[in-house]
């Protein structure tokens, strides 16, 4: 059934279809509507889950450490400062190999205090061991939710997943979405069968102290699981497509890359605006294509090398800054190419920071610079739409 609903409600509906045993969350803009909708579903008996209203985001995720250790399917959602408050638990969850799924309604990190969208929060947490998937629109964010559980709970993976969706832009938009069918989700996502749980009949110790003779191997196994996830994200998306008839690409997706001279690489909801901008650019004879990164962690090095091998220049548009260097996706992309000997110029743009609107004109400007960068970049990294007059 297709309906026009708010993005947050759509996510709540998708979460409901995944039959979580427990939802634990702390309110923070722009994530609030998701958990409000879930709490209403619990109050109305539509969702038979434990719903814990807790004292902080730190506690919200910590509660899920306990529930996940019990083998329960566990869900939370947060953003920005809340994600930062979870930082210590993020490493803990991934290190304990807990298949928790969390929707991150991407938002800027203060100071200055700012409630609007960018992706600094999640990109800043890229090294925490979580898989990070980014959605272009509400439907994709919805559909990624059961896919995320399927990936996280795979015995070869057992790694938590963040489903990242741009705050406000996707959480607060009303647009038509196809609701997930509960029975079909059950077919796609069978109940979680944990290998190890806390049970007095079979006592186990979870969360032991690992000295230098064991720690490296823990990390290595996490890295291996992320590598294996590279081989599962695409097939899971295809399996979803077979049941639900919707597909958004695997690790990456491309648009107008055939015959493109330059490419824009990005992730999240700006993909849609870029597609419209590129249609206009091609009509003007400017052949710029798009590569959409769906999986930021694990980072799809091979898929990106293949997709970008034929363009003469690349521009990354991303909603974050690695303050003191360039920005996450730009750096990651450059590192993906270094050892291939490929010398395609790569330039980076920080855009949409703290909710700054990204217009079609802005994209076309970046695309034009990308084409020009083939002759050698003027600037390697810059802030798109910088208001120089107020500096």
């Amino acid at each position, binding site marked *: 059934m297709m309906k026009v609903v708010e993005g947050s409600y759509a996510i709540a509906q998708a979460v409901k279809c995944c039959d979580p045993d427990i939802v634990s969350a702390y309110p923070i803009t722009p994530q609030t509507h998701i958990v409000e909708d879930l709490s209403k579903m619990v109050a109305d008996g539509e969702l038979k889950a434990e719903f814990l209203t807790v004292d902080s985001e730190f506690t919200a995720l910590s509660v899920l450490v306990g529930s996940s250790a019990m083998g329960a399917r566990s869900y939370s959602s947060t953003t920005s400062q809340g994600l930062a408050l979870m930082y210590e638990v993020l490493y803990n969850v991934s290190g304990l190999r807990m298949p928790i799924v969390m929707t991150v309604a991407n938002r800027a990190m203060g100071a200055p205090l700012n409630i609007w969208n960018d992706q600094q929060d999640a990109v800043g947490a890229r090294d925490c061991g979580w898989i990070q998937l980014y959605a272009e629109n509400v439907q994709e964010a919805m559909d990624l939710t059961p896919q995320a559980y399927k990936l996280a709970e795979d015995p070869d993976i057992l790694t938590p997943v963040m489903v990242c969706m741009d705050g406000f832009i996707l959480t607060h938009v009303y647009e038509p979405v196809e609701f997930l069918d509960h029975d079909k989700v059950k077919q796609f996502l069978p109940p979680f069968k944990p290998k190890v749980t806390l049970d007095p009949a079979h*006592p*186990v*110790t979870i969360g*032991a102290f690992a000295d230098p003779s064991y720690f490296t191997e823990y990390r290595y196994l996490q890295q291996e699981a992320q590598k294996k996830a590279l081989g599962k994200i695409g097939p899971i998306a295809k399996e979803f497509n077979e049941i639900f008839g919707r597909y958004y690409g695997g690790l990456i997706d491309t648009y107008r890359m055939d015959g493109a001279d330059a490419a824009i690489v990005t992730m999240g909801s700006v993909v849609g605006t870029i597609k419209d901008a590129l249609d206009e650019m091609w009509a003007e004879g400017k052949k710029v294509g798009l590569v959409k990164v769906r999986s930021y962690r694990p980072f799809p090095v091979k898929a990106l090398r293949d997709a970008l091998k034929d363009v003469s220049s690349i521009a990354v548009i991303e909603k974050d800054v690695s303050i003191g260097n360039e920005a996450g996706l730009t750096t990651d992309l450059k590192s993906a190419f270094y050892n291939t000997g490929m010398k395609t110029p790569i330039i980076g743009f920080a855009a949409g920071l703290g909710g700054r609107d990204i217009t079609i004109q802005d994209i076309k400007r970046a695309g034009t610079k990308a084409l020009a960068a083939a002759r050698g970049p003027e600037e390697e990294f810059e802030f798109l739409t910088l208001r120089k007059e107020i500096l």
Partner: protein
Amino acid sequence: MGPGSTQVTKTGAWRTFVPVVDQKRCSKCSLCEIYCPEGCIRRVEGMFIPDLDYCKGCSICAHECPRKAITMILEEK
């Protein structure tokens, strides 16, 4: 990570002084067993015997014994 698997580590190796129980003085009050941090004082045929595989030689048992039936002596290894 088997339950109780620290038992593979014989902490008796940490010990300098070893408890010696004078079974004749022992009143079987079991305080040594209760207070032992290692939980390594065992009842064997009605007698309280420290398991020297784990005893770290802390001397709590000797200190707490109401009949002064336990003495700590320098262990010769």
